């Protein structure tokens, strides 16, 4: 997929996360490599991690409710 290639520098940039985001991801058991960053250059922001944590919680809660 050649389209993905031009994205590679983007994903390199998003590999940098702030210590706050890293710690938050750790606390919420969120795998950063699976999170899509919405910040400048695809950078992962705090809200992205919170959203990912929320999404996972929702996914886990669903079967339990049945």
């Amino acid at each position: 997929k050649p389209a993905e290639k031009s994205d590679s520098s983007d994903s390199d940039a998003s590999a940098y996360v702030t210590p706050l985001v890293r710690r938050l991801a750790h606390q919420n058991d969120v795998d950063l490599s699976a999170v899509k960053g919405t910040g400048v250059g695809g950078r992962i922001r705090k809200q992205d991690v919170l959203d990912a944590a929320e999404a996972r919680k929702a996914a886990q809660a669903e079967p339990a409710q049945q």
Partner: protein
Amino acid sequence: MAASATAQEFDILVLGGGSGGYAAALRAVQLGFTVGLIEKGKLGGTCLHNGCIPTKALLHSAEIADGARDAEKYGVKATFESIDMNAVNAYKDGIIAGKYRGLQGLIKSKGITVIEGSGKLASQNTIDVDGTVYTGKHIILATGSFSRSLPGLEIGGKVITSDQALTMDFVPKSVIILGGGVIGCEFASVWKSFGVDVTIVEALPSLVPNEDASIVKNFERAFKKRGIKFNTGTRFKSVEQNDDGVVVSLEDGKTFEADLMLVAVGRGPVTQNLGYEEAGLTMDRGFVITNERLHTGVGTIYAIGDIVPGLQLAHRGFQQGIFVAEEIAGLKPVVVADLNIPKVTYSDPEIASVGYTEKAAREKFGDENVLTHEYNLAGNGKSSIIGTGGIVKLVREKDGPIVGVHMLGSRMGEQIGEAQLIVNWEAYPEDVAPLIHAHPTQNEALGEAHLALAGKPLHG
């Protein structure tokens, strides 16, 4: 008992209106609770009236005196004449009065009921204030601390504590300071700048013994260079007062003479005869024992500030006060470990530290898992400009975050803000390194140290 106009029932009763108590009260009313704040002396407590604030005012007068004395070095022709202690006290008291007025106004405007008088825990939910009984659904104990002495060492005459030292109307010729911790070193610094012959006597092997070894070494060197004398590693034995002053003897037989002796051997908790034991609180050498969340284990009673074992610092009191108010409100606040609370000694040079010392980190993580870097302020332009030496020492877990920052130098206390964020946010040196710090500041010394520890020193 006559019915009083003041309500006698509160959601929260706070005993003691110092740093811890008033912070708890302020946060509690913000969260919608009714609060009764019991204070027998002055709102603001030790910190405002006999602690942080007056000492820092003296230290600023000291800085001004040194500046005038050394003015010529900077091309300024000025003559230092003398210290006018009445004027120093007027300045200091003016600062205290301003802050005190502000605090009283704030407490009042927020609707906190201040109950003047001496309180005693009467049951798990009541406090007796000079005969009137007040009820609180929750009780927060914040009765603070007092200047301790050693067994058999009586305070009086020419043997004083910080309380007297802060209200003296003359500059002594010579002083012996018993205790080389924060308070002792701050007074040593002030007096030296005021022209006093100062000798510190410390039983432990060094001054500021809680600090990282590199800080200790450089701090002692700086004090020596300033002409502040100290005798460490030998215990105090006795003191005699005579017409001329005091004669202090150590256990090894050495004696020292001076006009005065300041006893600065620590602060004891104010907990005696306050009904704490009777209510069933767990006590240890006078301190109130709590769990990590500051609950005493009895009813809905919490304890905060200097009566809880640990760092005796005003901002720890603030933090604990806020914490308990939020805890009562069910907000589940985050526990901040003492280790990660910033500590500053405001002497010249200043010491600022947060997190693990190198030694503690080695014990915790193992020798092979700790890396350190020491950056010398000789390489920092702004420090040279203001004429200070010093160091920044970083302690990191190998392949892990910065776990300790230790700094020494004039004005370096102000760098503790960035340092504490780094430690509390578990930053790696590599996280700090790309953020080049403003030039030329003392702050960039922190940046350089992180660059170096990240393996890419800029100027090294």
